[in-house]
C-alpha cells in the first residue's frame, strides 16, 4: 500500500472538488440517499457523497464515518449531522438531518397507519410473517459478515467479549446500560493493553 498523504482538514477550499452544496442541495441529497436505502443507508451515502457529488474523498468519508460509528446513536444520522455541519454549520446539520429522516419518516408513518387499520387481515398477516422471516435472515447475514474478520483473526479476547455481550443481552435479557457499563471499560482496557504489548 502506498504511504498515505496527510488529509488536509483546514478550511481552505479544495480546488479539485465542485462547489460545496447549499442547504436545499444538502436536504435533497440526503433525502435521495435515504429513500434509496433499503436495509441501511450507509452504502448509498458513501456512493452519493464520495462518487456522485464528490463532496468528500473516500478517506475523508471513512474518517467521518469512524467518528460517527464510535459515538452512540444511529450512525447514519450522526453522519448526516457531522457532514452537514462541516459544509454549512448548524443550518447544514439541520438540513441534512431533516433530509435523511423526514421523507422516510412520512413513509414509515403511512405504513404504520395502514398496519394499525388492516394489520389483522389474514392476507396481510401472512405477508408480514413472511417479510419478518426474511428480515431476520438479513440481520443474521449482516452479523455474520461483520463477525467473519474477528473469527479469522482468532482474537480470543474480542470473541470472548462478543459472546459475553450476546449472552447477557440476547439470552439473559439484562438491561443494556448495565452490560455496557462493564463491557465498554473492559474492552477499552483490553484493547489498550494489546496495543501497548504490540508496540513494545
Amino acid at each position, binding site marked *: 500500500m502506498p504511504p498515505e498523504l496527510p488529509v488536509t482538514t483546514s478550511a481552505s477550499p479544495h480546488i479539485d472538488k465542485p462547489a460545496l452544496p447549499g442547504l436545499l442541495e444538502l436536504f435533497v441529497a440526503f433525502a435521495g440517499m435515504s429513500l434509496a436505502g433499503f436495509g441501511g443507508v450507509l452504502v448509498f451515502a458513501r456512493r452519493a457523497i464520495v462518487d456522485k457529488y464528490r463532496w468528500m474523498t473516500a478517506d475523508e468519508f471513512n474518517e467521518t464515518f469512524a467518528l460517527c460509528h464510535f459515538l452512540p*446513536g444511529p450512525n447514519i444520522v450522526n453522519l448526516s449531522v457531522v457532514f452537514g455541519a462541516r459544509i454549512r454549520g448548524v443550518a447544514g446539520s439541520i438540513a441534512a438531518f431533516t433530509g435523511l429522516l423526514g421523507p422516510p419518516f412520512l413513509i414509515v408513518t403511512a405504513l404504520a397507519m395502514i*398496519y394499525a387499520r388492516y394489520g389483522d387481515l389474514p392476507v396481510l398477516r401472512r405477508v408480514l410473517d413472511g417479510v419478518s422471516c426474511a428480515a431476520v435472515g438479513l440481520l443474521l447475514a449482516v452479523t455474520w459478515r461483520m463477525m467473519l474478520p474477528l473469527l479469522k483473526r482468532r482474537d480470543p479476547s474480542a470473541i470472548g467479549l462478543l459472546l459475553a455481550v450476546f449472552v447477557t443481552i*440476547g439470552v439473559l435479557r439484562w438491561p443494556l446500560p448495565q452490560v455496557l457499563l462493564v463491557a465498554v471499560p473492559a474492552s477499552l482496557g483490553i484493547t489498550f493493553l494489546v496495543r501497548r504489548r504490540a508496540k513494545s
Partner: protein
Amino acid sequence: MIAPASLFGIAVTFGWLSLFAVGGAAAAIPEIHRIAVELNHWMSDTQFADAYAISQLSPGPNVLIVSLVGYHVAGIAGALVATLAMCGPTAALAYAVSRLLHRAGNSPWPSLIQQALVPISIGLMAASGLVVAIAADGSMAAAALTLVAAVIAAVTRLNPVWLLLAGGLLGAAGLV
C-alpha cells in the same frame, strides 16, 4: 421502573436509550424490545416482529423502527417524539464532538475506542438477531425461510429488498 405510555414517557425512554445505542440502531433492537414488549407491554412479540419487518421494508435508516413503536403507543405524535428522542440527543452530541475533534488533531482515542467497540456492537447485533428470530419465527417453516434468506444474503450481493418481497410472497402463499 415502568414509564407511562405518554409522550413524555416515550421521549425519556428513547432519549435515554439512544445514549447507549452503541453500534447503531440494529444493535439497539434487544433493548427496544425489552422496553417495549417485556417491561412496558406496549406491544406483543408479534407486533414487534411486524414493526421490525415494516421498518426493513421501508427505505431510510433502520432507526425508524422506533417511529413504528412510537406510533403504536401514541399515534403520529408518538412516532414523531420517539424518532426525535432517539436521534436528537445523539445528533447534538455528534455535532459537539466533531467540532471538538476538528481542533484536537490526531488523538489516538477515537481509533482506540472504535476498535474496542467492534466486538461489543457485533455481540449486540447477534443478540438482535436472536431476539427478532424468537419474535418472528414461530414455526419450522418460518425458521427455514429465515435460514435460506440468511444464506442468500451472506453469499450474494442481492439487494435486500428482493429478499423481503420474496418472503412476503411466500407468506402470502401460506408457506410460512
